[in-house]
């Protein structure tokens, strides 16, 4: 007797399985891909009864998956990059991916400097590079369907190796752009050597009202004593579906600061899995979520204290307007023996309209006793007393509201490092707030 799945497969799931079967499986990572797809065949797209996806039912949300894109012609590529979100005065070295493919001619791969190794994943695959052994090596929750899909269909991405002790001066931006309704599966691998430091940025953008999909996975392996900042700027187009996963492993004494900035896409889920693999490490994961219209913005993170003596901090701010939905799920896991763990998480949500919705699930999962763990979560509308105070000083209501929303996001924005990137994002938030006051 064959075991029937609890819920019948959706057309999108059937299509994905068929597409995988039709692919040429013979590349250097075919066994990894097959394992991933076997997982996917069992689980399918996650639905609301799958605890981790309770608020983001991909089975219902993903009706179909557009085909993977091809490398665009030069002119189109240039025009696409010209329209990408900028960084104001900040200088960054860009690695440009359009419709999932690396565009060498528009990238600054040559300017990354000494101690920074870079190879596009597509090239590594065709050359059967030894570095491929490191792909899929970091711990992710078993059979996470998003990671599984990326693994099954990944074609290209950035493989970066920062040599031990290298201090990379200029931030490296991995820029993802789309030209039309395609699905991309970018896979990045960043290996940061002992004592090195680097500022990484991932930017996602694309045309408005276009049903493109991003299924991205990044793996960041932070070596002993290394320092990494990771800024994820999600400004995908209004019709896009953005699903991205960041997998991080921190060695002893490593420092990691991640900021998720979610402002774009129709449906987005940005998930992070951070594992402490060496003691004395510290991680800070912040998030600023700005939702409007009917956006669905999910930020999910799992912080796994697998070893003793590490600190984690998470600060989340969500400002949700119109009929948008903001979701935050954060789980701090403290494994047996991970004594002297200090984990703290604070999420606050501001509902700016009566149709807005915020769902929060902050979890603590603790298996060791000598720990200090806490989380807090609040949600509500703009504080009346603050509004009154500002207005009593002559500030008009809409301006007072704008000030208070900006102030609410300040704690996350203020922590963004380095400063020029922070200023660019502040300007972006101001723009969002400006649009709010003067609806188009």
């Amino acid at each position, binding site marked *: 007797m064959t075991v029937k799945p609890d819920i019948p497969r959706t057309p999108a799931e059937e299509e994905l399985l068929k597409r995988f079967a039709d692919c040429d499986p013979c590349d250097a990572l075919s066994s990894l891909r097959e394992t991933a797809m076997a997982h996917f065949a069992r689980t399918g797209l996650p639905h609301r009864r799958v605890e981790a996806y309770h608020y983001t039912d991909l089975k219902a949300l993903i009706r179909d998956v557009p085909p993977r894109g091809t490398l665009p012609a030069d002119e189109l590529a240039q025009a696409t990059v010209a329209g990408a979100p900028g960084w104001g005065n900040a200088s960054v070295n860009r690695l440009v991916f359009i419709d999932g493919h690396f565009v060498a001619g528009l990238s600054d791969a040559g300017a990354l400097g000494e101690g920074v190794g870079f190879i596009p994943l597509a090239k590594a695959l065709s050359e059967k590079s030894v570095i491929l052994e490191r792909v899929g090596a970091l711990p992710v929750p078993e059979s996470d369907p998003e990671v599984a899909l990326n693994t099954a269909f990944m074609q290209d991405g950035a493989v970066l190796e920062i040599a031990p002790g290298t201090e990379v001066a200029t931030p490296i931006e991995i820029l993802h752009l789309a030209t039309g309704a395609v699905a991309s599966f970018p896979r990045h691998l960043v290996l940061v050597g002992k004592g090195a430091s680097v500022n990484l940025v991932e930017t996602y953008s694309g045309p408005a009202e276009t049903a493109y999909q991003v299924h991205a996975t990044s793996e960041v392996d932070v070596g002993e004593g290394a320092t990494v900042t990771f800024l994820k700027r999600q400004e995908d187009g209004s019709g896009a579906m953005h699903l991205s996963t960041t997998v991080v492993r921190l060695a002893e004494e490593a420092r990691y600061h991640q900021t998720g900035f979610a402002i774009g896409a129709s449906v987005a889920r940005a998930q992070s899995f951070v594992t402490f693999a060496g003691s004395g490490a510290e991680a800070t994961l912040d998030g600023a979520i700005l939702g409007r219209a009917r956006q669905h913005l999910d930020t999910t993170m799992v912080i796994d204290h697998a070893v003793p003596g590490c600190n984690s901090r998470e600060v989340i701010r969500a400002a949700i307007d119109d009929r948008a939905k903001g979701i935050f799920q954060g789980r701090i896991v403290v494994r047996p023996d991970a004594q002297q763990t200090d984990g703290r998480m604070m999420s606050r949500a501001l509902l700016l309209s009566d149709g807005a919705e915020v769902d929060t699930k902050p979890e603590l999962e603790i298996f060791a006793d000598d720990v200090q763990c806490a989380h807090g979560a609040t949600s509500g509308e703009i504080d009346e007393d603050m509004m*009154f*105070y*500002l*207005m*009593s000083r*002559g500030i008009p209501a809409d301006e007072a509201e704008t*000030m*208070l929303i900006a102030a609410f996001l300040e*704690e996350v924005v203020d922590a963004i490092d380095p400063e020029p990137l922070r200023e660019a994002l502040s300007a972006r938030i101001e723009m969002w707030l400006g649009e709010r006051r003067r609806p188009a």
Partner: protein
Amino acid sequence: MLEIKNLHVAVEGNEILKGIDLTVKPGEVHAIMGPNGSGKSTLSYVLAGKDDYDITAGEVLFNGQNLLEMAPNERAVAGLFLAFQYPIEIPGVATMTFLKTALNAVRKERGKDELSTPEFMKLVKEKSAKLNVSQEMLRRPLNVGFSGGEKKRAEILQMALLEPALCVLDETDSGLDIDALRVVSDGVNALRSPERSMIVITHYQRLLDHIVPDIVHVMARGRIQKTGGKELAKELEAKGYADYVGEAAA
């Protein structure tokens, strides 16, 4: 300048103000004294336009305008200023940014040009020095982590910058030690002028040693029970409010 006529105010069905009449002329300083729960703070919030209060009867004219129909910011622009008993802490908003936004909002509505940043900085420096407000304090988020005295000084600094026609000081002396009281009072006195009026709300007489009023009102049980000169404050200091509370209750 200000005319309050038969003002009745209720909160969730409980009447707090039961018919207040008060006229304040330009340049006058009125003190309103009264025991806790007499409705003093309610009056100040109603004048500034806080929600949650139901005006069940009466009217308030401010330079001929119907004050009760105006939004809080319109009242501020028109020249009304409330120094809060408990200034609100707003994390994430730098005090300096706030001062500049407020000042320019008020200037714009009063038909004046916005101040440039250097002009603004110069003005703030000048005014803050007099009130013993440090530059470091101005860089901090608005009222966050300010001591009681710092909060009150920051209120008076705002008052000095916004140049209101009518200042309402709600228990500005509460939580101040004698030195801080002097600094704040000097700041207030410096703003006295023949055009500017003030309503000083306080429980204790000691503030009135520093800010000497022209007229003193005793408020209890939602009404002004007695009006007199500054000597009335001294009398209250000696006798307390017992007479008025009893009188009202009888």
